[in-house]
């Protein structure tokens, strides 16, 4: 009986100590899932996006894409700009292909490779961070006066675009605010700000985000989410040998 009481006392002390060390440590994984909802609001949807690249403050070029997304594992990107017509990109789990009309075959690519400007393929096609990263809660801090949770995301699968992400999300809504993006060498290569949100079908979703090259600070890419619409998309649209046919 004494041993049981001692054990219970020790357990209570440990629990109390833990709560003093980190009094209200939120569930990092739950926060990450919630924040993903601002870029993936429906299980299956289509988004129309525009990426504008700026060099030294002047607009350099623009590209338009239709992004078809189903769950966290299937994304199909249809290139819409005149010079890129006929191109499309497929993400299927950890694998990615680009289909170019002027090459003899589909080309296997990786999420980190450049799509346009500072945007990597993964910045458009891999936006479901909870599927790709393990989240650890770091701290709370203010960004431009906004109270934020800071999460550290570590890649947990081969297909993740970045090795590590430092991620700031609002404490009140879990909306993404900004992210610092690191490659496997530990070098920070880009930073992202989530600038504007919009209401679509009663849901709050991303409207605009900006990607800044950490090495070339005068170079930035702005991604505008022009339209979102939930759609029932067939699975075979995302098959590696069928993509582009449908």
């Amino acid at each position, binding site marked *: 009986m004494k041993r049981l009481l001692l054990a219970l006392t020790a357990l209570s002390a440990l629990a109390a100590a833990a709560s003093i060390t980190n009094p209200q440590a939120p569930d990092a994984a739950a926060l990450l899932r919630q924040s993903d909802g601002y870029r993936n609001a429906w299980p299956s949807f289509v988004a129309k996006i525009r990426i504008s690249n700026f060099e030294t403050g002047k607009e350099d070029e623009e590209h338009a894409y239709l992004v078809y997304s189903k769950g966290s594992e299937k994304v199909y990107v249809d290139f819409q700009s005149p010079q890129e*017509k006929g191109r499309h990109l497929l993400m299927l789990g950890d694998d990615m292909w680009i289909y170019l009309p002027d090459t003899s075959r589909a080309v*296997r690519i990786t999420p980190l490779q450049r799509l346009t400007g500072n945007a990597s393929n993964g910045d458009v096609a891999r936006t479901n961070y909870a599927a790709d990263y393990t989240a650890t809660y770091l701290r709370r801090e203010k960004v431009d006066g906004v109270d934020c949770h800071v999460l550290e995301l570590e890649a947990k699968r081969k297909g993740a675009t970045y090795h590590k992400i430092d991620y700031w999300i609002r404490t009140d809504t879990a909306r993404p605010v900004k992210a610092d993006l690191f490659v496997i060498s530990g070098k920070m290569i880009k930073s992202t700000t989530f600038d504007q949100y919009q209401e679509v079908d009663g849901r709050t979703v991303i409207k605009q985000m900006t990607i800044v090259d950490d090495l070339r600070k005068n170079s930035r890419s702005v991604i505008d989410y022009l339209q979102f619409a939930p759609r029932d998309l067939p699975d075979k649209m995302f098959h590696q040998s069928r993509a582009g046919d449908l």
Partner: protein
Amino acid sequence: MAGNRRWLVLWFGLICVSVSAAAQPDDNAPIPGELPSTQTSDETRFSLALTNETSLVSGAQVPLPAASNIALLQPSFSYKHGQRWRFSSTVIGEVSDNQQADSRLMVREAYAGLSTGDFDWTAGKRILRWGTGYAFSPTGVLDPPRIPTDPTDHLSLNEGRELASLDWTRGSSAVTAVWASAGLLDKHAPGLYDTLALRYNVLYKGLDTAVIFDRDPVRPDLWGVNFTRVFGDGLEVHGEFARRRTGAALVGINYTHSSGWGAIAEYYTAGAGPDWVPAGQDPALAPAVRRHYYFARIAKSRLRELPGWKEWDVFASVVGSFSDQSWAVVAEVDRRINHHVTAYGRALMPGGSPRSLFGAIPFDVFTSLGLKFQL
């Protein structure tokens, strides 16, 4: 003289179109109007490409015009009704004076498709690409013939095969059965036969692989397998192995650096005899011994690192034969003028003994200057 004047007018017209397009504010990239259709509505797409290319030959060893011109108009149209019906077509209008002033109309693709559950039916003229090789493809049994000095088909002149196909897709697997004609409407090309072909394609743990069978009335059956696999952040490995009477194999790598530099290297070997002569070439001229080839390409898209050069793409490639020590080098620069217009220059330089594969190409340098307008 009249011909030269006509080409000058065409060039002048294209330059006017380009200058006019360049003068438009560049902050309005075309954005599609509405999001794609729901299950029951229609979707129509249209695009147009206009290309004019002038070629100059130097060091010709046979009678060839010192300069020639080709102009291409390539409209594409596709229509989709919900998720079930689709139609797609691309035609090519060509005016050229390569040998003598000539014009022709070609159908690059024109096919209709029907989707029923896991099955997709297609009939018409269509380009299929089953091979994984870049410059060579022994398992690309229905692919347009690869030209190793122009594997990207820079003028988009490749045409599809007249075929009927059935695809079954489920999960990560797909099975395709195709009957392709040697030419129902088109004239028969040498080395092209009525073909029954089957392919099983599956993605397993990152390995995209396909098993291919091909039967035609002239050659022994083909069995082949091909694959691609990605390692790390930029390396792709691909390969193809196929056998008829003799075997053919290809292995290659494609490395892309995040800065935009890319390199491709391939080794290809094909057995003696007519089994591996690409469609369009006369099988009677097949070599009597096994051949070994190499291909290498280095490219940089967007020279962003050089001030004022971010609109430029460059590449250089070399293809050669280990068997007869001949080779051909191709260099190209592309300059994006605006959203609609690209200018390019490319040069082909063959080398080797006059009786070798590439050394037999009858000129020293073939230079092409082109302007492409896309809508």
